[in-house]
């Protein structure tokens, strides 16, 4: 009787652990953007990115507060929040999508695996379908996810006044870097 109870307890713990391990999370993912323009280069970083990856079905999401983008120059940060992304009206950006065919990938190989990430990226009041290349690499119990892609500000209703066209690029490089741990 005791052995049966121990066996049931063990199976229950294993199943619970396996179920819990389907979702990998972080609260401190990093998103950077880089603008290269004739007069100056501008870089900003946000380390308050909530992100989750379900390795069973490939669902991948992230959400971040726009005010957490940190710039080298205070004036740039002010313009970014007040004039460009209007973070008082649209305080978050988010992505909701998937990594298709994730069950065909061998995450346990420990190698960096090329993946495609597709879904809806929302910035300000605009949602666009995107499909971008990225990588996943499993190390010990964590998954490192990376993607670099281009965002055009005008596509997300971010209007750059003419006087800033030599300061801010029309195409911004966005880098996503997340280290996800089991739930």
């Amino acid at each position: 009787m005791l052995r049966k109870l121990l066996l049931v307890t063990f199976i229950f713990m294993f199943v619970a652990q396996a179920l819990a391990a389907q979702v990998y999370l972080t609260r401190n993912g990093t998103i950077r953007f880089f603008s290269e323009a004739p007069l100056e280069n501008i870089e900003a970083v946000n380390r308050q990115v909530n992100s989750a990856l379900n390795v069973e079905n490939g669902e991948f999401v992230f959400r971040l507060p726009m005010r957490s983008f940190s710039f080298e120059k205070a004036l740039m940060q002010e313009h970014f929040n007040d004039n460009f992304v209007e973070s008082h009206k649209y305080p978050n950006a988010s992505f909701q999508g998937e990594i298709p065919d994730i069950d065909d990938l061998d995450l346990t190989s420990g190698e960096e695996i090329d993946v495609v990430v597709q879904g809806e990226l929302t910035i300000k009041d605009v949602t666009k379908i995107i499909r971008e290349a990225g990588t996943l690499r499993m190390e010990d119990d964590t998954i490192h996810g990376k993607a670099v892609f281009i965002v055009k500000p005008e596509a997300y209703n971010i209007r750059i006044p003419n006087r800033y066209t030599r300061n801010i690029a029309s195409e911004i490089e966005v880098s996503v870097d997340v280290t996800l741990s089991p739930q």
Partner: protein
Amino acid sequence: MKTWKIILVAIAIFGVIAALIVWFFVYNKPHPDFIGAEPDMELPAEQLYFDFIDDEQLANETYIDKVLQIHGEIADVEQVDDMVILSFVFQDGMFGGEGVRCTIHESFHEEALSLEVGSVVTVKGYCTGFTGSDVIIEHASFP
């Protein structure tokens, strides 16, 4: 002729001074001093969190871009890369314990890491928003 020269030199000097003022005090103005700033509001960390849970839009308008002084019982102090994060936790969610997460200013890292879980602490910092699981306070210090 001499008067014109004096006027031109004066205009040039004025122009250089104006350019320097713009360069130092506008283009290169410093980031806000969140450590020295007076808080815009003081409230319990629990109230801050549940205000976001109850009505996120209203809480966005009320708290984001404000210097807040909050107090509560420490649930965790963790080091994430070069960041030290002090958490107040009020309920369980997808991300585990969820509540208010304060990224501590580097000059207060040592003090934060010496705090004991369960002790009550007051933290002042800049509210940047809500991630869906936590309210985020950055540049946090102990007033």
